[in-house]
Structure formats: C-alpha cells, structure tokens
C-alpha cells in the first residue's frame, strides 16, 4: 500500500506556477528518490507536500487527504521534513534542537534513547551539545537537521538534499543510518539528492523532474539503467 500518493500536484510562488502536475508515490516502508536538474522543482515539490506553499491537486498521506492541511498538522501526522540548507533553530542549543524534534512525543525514555543514539552516530554533535546550533559548521548543522527530523520518529521522512555540505564519510554514515532505521522502524522516505548514485542505491522507486513535470519514473533499478539519467546525474 502506498503511504504517500501525490497526484497532479500544481504549486508555485505567487502567480508563477512551478509544478505543472507532479505525480509521485512513496510505498509503506519504501524509499522514493526524486532527481532533477537545478531549478526543476524538487524543493518546490517537497514544500508543497508539507504545506509550506499554496498547492492544488491531491496529496494523500496514510489514507488521509492532506492537501489543505497546514505544515504543523502535516508534521503531526508523522511527516518530518529536512529542508534544503540550514534547517536548524540557530539560537537554540544542539540539545534543544534535538528535543524540539521530539516535543510531540510522550515516551520520555525512548526520546532519551534516541537522543543518545543520534549523538553516538554523529560525535561532532555530541562534542558541541551545548553550543548554539547557529555557530556550527554547515555540515554539522546538516547533521543536526537530519537528527532533529529523526527525533520525531516520523512515518515519512522527507529529505531535501541531506548530503548537502556533508563530507563523503558522513554522507555515507547518514545513508547507512537511514537504511538501518528503515529496517528497524519501517520509516518511509522521500529523498531529493544530487548524489544520485547514493540515492538510487537506497531507493526502490525514482522519479526524475524536469521543469515541474515528472519526465521519467520507475523502479530505481530501472532508472539507473537509463542512459540519459546516467549522463546527467550519475556521471558514468
């Protein structure tokens, strides 16, 4: 069963429409990769999904139509979004940032355990647990943003270029962790990622956006095989 179904999504900024009917699904416990050139509308798709911009079409999450819900309501249904760029609360400490991620959870011991786990995964965060998030390096903030999203134990993790600014070794660690979590608590993922090799290696489904439309879509394994995709996104 599909956890998320987006059908004919249209969205944009002000009068300008950027998405002209995007259709896309994420299976329960599955991972969908969203590829596309600069300005194709990937970020816009994720923003529309999470109610951050005006949108039309149909978005069904977990059997519920969320097309007209507000960002916070969508988040509370179990969608965690790691936005592109700096997704942290700059003046709050690292610890507080992580706790904000878990604010809606009631299971305190589990929250504490998750916190420990995040810190173990990224020692860079543990080292600066009391520092204001805004003073950290770009990559460290990116790790924090991902962890903050994980702290809410979402059903669907929406990641907008999680590897942005991460060192290769960390990128790999993030993706390993994501795969592990998917296995462990069955979180589903929608990933926008320029490191397409990596994204396709964890994804089971992939869509390629071009100018606000889905140009290609299919099982990840199939997509990897396409020549045009390889040239543009994989460099092989």
């Amino acid at each position, binding site marked *: 069963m599909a956890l998320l179904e987006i059908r004919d999504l249209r969205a944009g900024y002000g009068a300008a429409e950027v998405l002209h009917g995007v259709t896309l699904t994420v299976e329960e416990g599955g991972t969908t990769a969203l590829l596309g*050139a600069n300005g194709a509308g990937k970020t816009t798709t994720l923003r529309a999904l999470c109610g951050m911009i005006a949108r039309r079409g149909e978005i069904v999450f977990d059997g519920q139509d969320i097309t007209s819900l507000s960002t916070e309501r969508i988040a509370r249904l179990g969608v965690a979004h790691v936005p592109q760029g700096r997704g942290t609360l700059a003046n709050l400490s690292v610890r507080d940032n992580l706790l904000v991620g878990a604010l809606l959870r009631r299971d305190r011991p589990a929250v504490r355990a998750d916190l420990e786990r995040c810190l173990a995964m990224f020692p860079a965060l543990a080292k600066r647990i009391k520092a204001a998030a805004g003073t950290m390096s770009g990559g460290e903030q990116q790790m924090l943003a991902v962890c903050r999203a994980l702290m809410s134990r979402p059903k669907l993790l929406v990641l907008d270029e999680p590897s942005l600014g991460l060192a290769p070794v960390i990128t790999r660690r993030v993706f390993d962790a994501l795969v592990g979590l998917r296995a462990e608590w069955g979180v589903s993922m929608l990933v926008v990622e320029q490191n397409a090799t990596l994204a396709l290696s964890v994804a089971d489904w992939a869509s390629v956006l071009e*100018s606000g439309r889905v140009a290609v879509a299919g099982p990840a394994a199939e997509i990897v095989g396409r020549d045009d995709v390889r040239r543009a996104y994989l460099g092989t």
Partner: protein
Amino acid sequence: MTRVAQEGWRGGLAKLTARRTTRWVLGAVAAAVLVAIPFNASPYTNLQLALVIALAVSLRGMDVLTGHAGQVTLGQSAFFGIGAYSGGYGFAHGWPAPLSFLLAVVLCVIAGVIVAIPAVRLRGFAFGVITLALPVVMAPLAIRLDWLTGGPVGLAVTTVQAPAWSGLADDQWQYLLVLAVGAVMFLLAHNLLAGRVGRALTLIRTSEIAASSVGIPVQRYKVLAFTVAAAYGGVGGWLYLTAVHYIGVDSLALTLSISMLVALVVGGVRSPLGCVIGAAFYILVPNITDKATPGRSALFFGVALLIVLFVVPSGLSGALRAGWSRLLASPRPATPAAAPPSAEQHASA
C-alpha cells in the same frame, strides 16, 4: 542566449520605457497641480500641505536609514527639532533664511555623525532604542538652553515673507518655498539611492556579512545613512518652522519620533511616494476624524492605522503602485506556467 529570454528582455525594456513616459507625464501633471494649489486654497490648506511636505522630507531621510539600510530609528524627531530650532533662532535674530537653513543642516549633520559613530555598532532593537535617547534628552535640554531655544515658552517668529513683487500672501509664498526645497531634497535622495549607494545600503539591510564581502564598509555606510536621515530631519524641521512659525518643547513630544516611524510604514518604506502619503496620513487623518468626532481623533487614528496596515500591509504607496500597474499592465500572458524549458536547462544545453 535563448530566443525567448531575449524577447523577454526586449519586452521588459519596452514596458520600462512605456512606464517611464507615463511617469514623466504624471510627474509633470502632479508638479503643475502642486504648484497651482496655493493660489486657490485657503491658508489652512496651504499650512497643512506645507506641513505634509516638511514631514515628508523628514520621512524621506528616515527612509534612507530605516527603509533602505534597515536600521529602525526612533530619534528622528530630535533632528527635526534641531532643524526647527535653528530656523527659529535664525529668524528670531533676523538672519537671512538661507543662513539658518544652512545652520540646520550643519548642526544635524554634526549631531548625526556624533551619535551615529557609536550607535551603528548596534543592531536591531538595540539600535532603535538607543536612538530613542535623543528625543528624551531633547526636551529638558531645550528648556535648559533657553537663551537659544526660548526655553519652555519656545520661539514664535516671523519666517520668510512673500516679496512685494510676487503679489502673494505669506502662506502661499511659504508653501511654494517649502515645496521647492522639498522637491530638491527628494531629487537628491532619489539620485543618491539610484545606484551604488542604494545598493550598498540595501545589501547591508539584507546581510552585513555579504555587504562587507564585496568591499562595502558597513559601519561607514550606516553612519552615512544616519547622517542623511539627520540632515533630512533637520531640513524637515526647518521647513516645519517656516510654515508653523513656532517651535517649543511641546512641539517635540516624545511620541513624535514614533509617529514618524508609523507614518513611514503606513506610507510604505523604500518609496518616495510612501513618504509623502505617510506624512499626509499623519497630518490629515486627525484633522479629518476630528471634524467627525472631536475628541476621538486618537482612537480613530489608531483604528485607521490598523485598517490601513491590515488592508495594504506594504503601505499605502505599495497599494497605489499595485493598483496602478494593474491598470497599466497590458494583459500579461496568463500562463506563466508555459515558461520555456530551455530557459532552465542551460546546463544541459
């Protein structure tokens, strides 16, 4: 580059020139009307209009600092006061008008620089509140320096008078003088902001870090903006005195600075027209509501303010501009959706 992009560019140019001509025509008409008004209007109207212009000049200066450079000031009324007192002192002692005008500008520039150099090190609310010290100090200081300011009683003076050859009444002459000076001040501000300086101030508002990365000396430009604001405040005050003929501590209530900020926002920041509209709002709305309900003018002013912000959050000038361009705009291609893919795909081209 792609054909489409070029067309867009040329279309833009055409629209630009079209807009420029309509602007010129409109400007000429507006100028004619403004010049013609005093001949047919009552002294009451002339006074109100002169006050609007005087305040607008002060707001224009504030706009450079607050609107463009992003530094919210609550001290503008102090410079307004310095300008008015300079004028008052000059006229009381029989100086020629240009001399006291010069004094107003010089004093405000000096005071502005002295205050600005330390103040610009602060950001945000701290800067705004620090500037609030100026009007607070102003009143007791004016009382203490009574040989200069007339103390608590203030200075009631005769200002510029219409020369006999003009055949005009004083209020008409004063209005025209205020209008002329105001026009020059607006032109200067326009020139200043168009280009390098305007860009520098705007980038400072967005990010001081980005500004310094391209070689903009942030502090110096903030001092510049503050000084410009001070000078404009001084000129505004001088014009105010020219029209009102009186300056005293009661004229410089603590709330004047805040009112100026209100007027600026209501009119719309970063807009010359906004300064004029904001000034008109501040001067005229109480006069209008007072007619309807004497004694409730403050209440209605507050309500009017909220309504305006509610309806047109970018200020009245923004609303006007939007309405205007909707009126002018040749129906745009209704489908921006049809943006050509080639435009975005330069990388793969």
